[in-house]
């Protein structure tokens, strides 16, 4: 998650209007999931990958490494979906265990493959958004989409304090290590416990300090901030519309 955060600030697509990127990835995601077409999935996966790596300037190996995270989960799912345990063998293959067979049919395998492709394509959509758009920009889009204010303010504060508290945890952990807090398994468990409780206490304290600081700046219950806008470009919107149109056409034809 921290790597994605770093990448999003370095991305070459960072200053493209966030609404465009959000619309593009969400619309594509919806089409992808709704149609479940393998062809569509492969196309989306390729386009999103190319956009993120080539246009966004995200290093290829980083992108591939990020892709392995959902891959592990997906593999497990595919195995469960694709194979079945039955008393009667199915056509593709069957391994017998006494009276039972571990077996697969063309349909179940294809179904698993379909799910796999759709899921990878969906992940690539979300990666496109999160690798190229800083969190604050995504929040601005949500704000424009009339997401509840409270939710957005919470996300804003949580996002900021993830980093503050991570730093804090890191410091505590280093100071524990320099006093042999992880000398054996028992001690390191105990150290981890104290780290968590110390972190909690500090988080509560910090929230008090933050509230004082915000009150000092005339906070009245509404977190009003200005957003830096990067105006949308007609050409980009047109291209997005064309692409979504193409996807829709494919989805309809394949059906």
């Amino acid at each position, binding site marked *: 998650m921290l790597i994605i955060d770093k990448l999003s600030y370095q991305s070459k697509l960072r200053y493209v209007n966030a609404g465009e990127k959000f619309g593009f990835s969400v619309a594509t995601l919806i089409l992808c999931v709704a149609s479940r077409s393998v062809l569509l999935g492969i196309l989306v996966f390729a386009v999103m990958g190319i956009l993120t790596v080539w246009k966004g300037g995200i290093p290829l190996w980083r992108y591939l490494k990020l892709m392995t995270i959902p891959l592990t989960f997906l593999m497990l799912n595919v195995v469960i979906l694709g194979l079945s345990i039955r008393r009667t063998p199915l056509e593709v293959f069957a391994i017998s265990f006494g009276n039972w067979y571990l077996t697969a049919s063309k349909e179940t395998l294809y179904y698993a493959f379909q799910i796999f492709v759709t899921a990878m394509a969906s992940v690539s959509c979300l990666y496109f958004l999160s690798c190229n758009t800083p969190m604050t920009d995504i929040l601005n889009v949500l704000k424009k989409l009339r997401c509840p204010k409270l939710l957005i303010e919470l996300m804003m504060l949580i*996002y900021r304090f993830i980093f503050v508290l991570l*730093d804090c945890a890191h410091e505590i952990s280093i100071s524990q290590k320099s006093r042999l807090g992880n000398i054996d398994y028992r001690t390191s468990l105990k150290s981890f416990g104290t780290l968590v409780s110390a972190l909690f206490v500090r988080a509560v304290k910090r929230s008090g*300090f933050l509230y*004082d600081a915000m*009150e000092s*700046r005339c906070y009245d219950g509404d977190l009003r*901030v200005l957003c830096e806008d990067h105006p949308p470009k007609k050409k980009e919107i047109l291209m997005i519309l064309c692409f979504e149109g193409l996807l829709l056409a494919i989805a309809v034809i394949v059906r």
Partner: protein
Amino acid sequence: MMNEVILKAENVFYSYDDGKTHSLNGLSLEIRRGKKIAVMGANGSGKSTFFLCCNGVYRPSEGTIYFHGKPVDYSRKGLLQLRQKVGIVFQDPDNQLFSASVFQEISFGILNLGVPEEEARKEVERIMNEMEITPYRDRPTHALSGGQKKQVSIADILIMKPEIVILDEPAAALDPKHTVLVNQAVDRMTGEGITVMMATHDVNYAMEWADEVMIFRDGTVAAHGVPEQVFEDKQLLRETNLEQPAVLQLFDSLKKKGILKEELPLPRSLGALLQEIERLPSR
């Protein structure tokens, strides 16, 4: 105009634990407009508590704070007005910066004052230029260095156009380069006529910079006056664990040896003293 009292505390008490112990213990003081005031004193002597009383975040349990001669009005509207005029730059920027975007962060204060968006946008740009934040404006706050965060936290306050700026140990944990930047920002503020109160442990800086020095002890003001006078009181300095500024010690010892003339006025900085010594005929 210069000698007008802008902020006044009269016999102020404040307690964090319902009166068992007092962080402020009958504190009384007067702050004059346009002055540069160094606030000194050990940790826990009540500096930070007093600062938060100044802008109405804490309400004294006894005693009164006056702003421009009028007791502080703790209604919603009164507090908003007070907090615009009295800005606090907190010691740890991580306790002050709440947004991951520098631009959003700085715009918070001015929008709370009800300034229209377009104007606020221009002001944010202006203050970012002035505070030399522009080169790293596109970086997220968590990727900034301590010094850069400090710059942003000062911009946070300056954008609200305060009359008094309170800086709580601004140079704590800063490298020399950023200390200079912060000091420059402080000089700009006083140049614009803003009254500045700064908590600091650096006696040499206080001696050189401040018009007045205030020493806090156990929630009251133990001494308040021009630096020459406050730092002359060795007994008090010992009691509050402070040292005499280097320039004062050197000056005294040079005078005692008869190297410098008795009637020479006390220079404020080591540089000024060295110049005096330069002027002496070589032996």
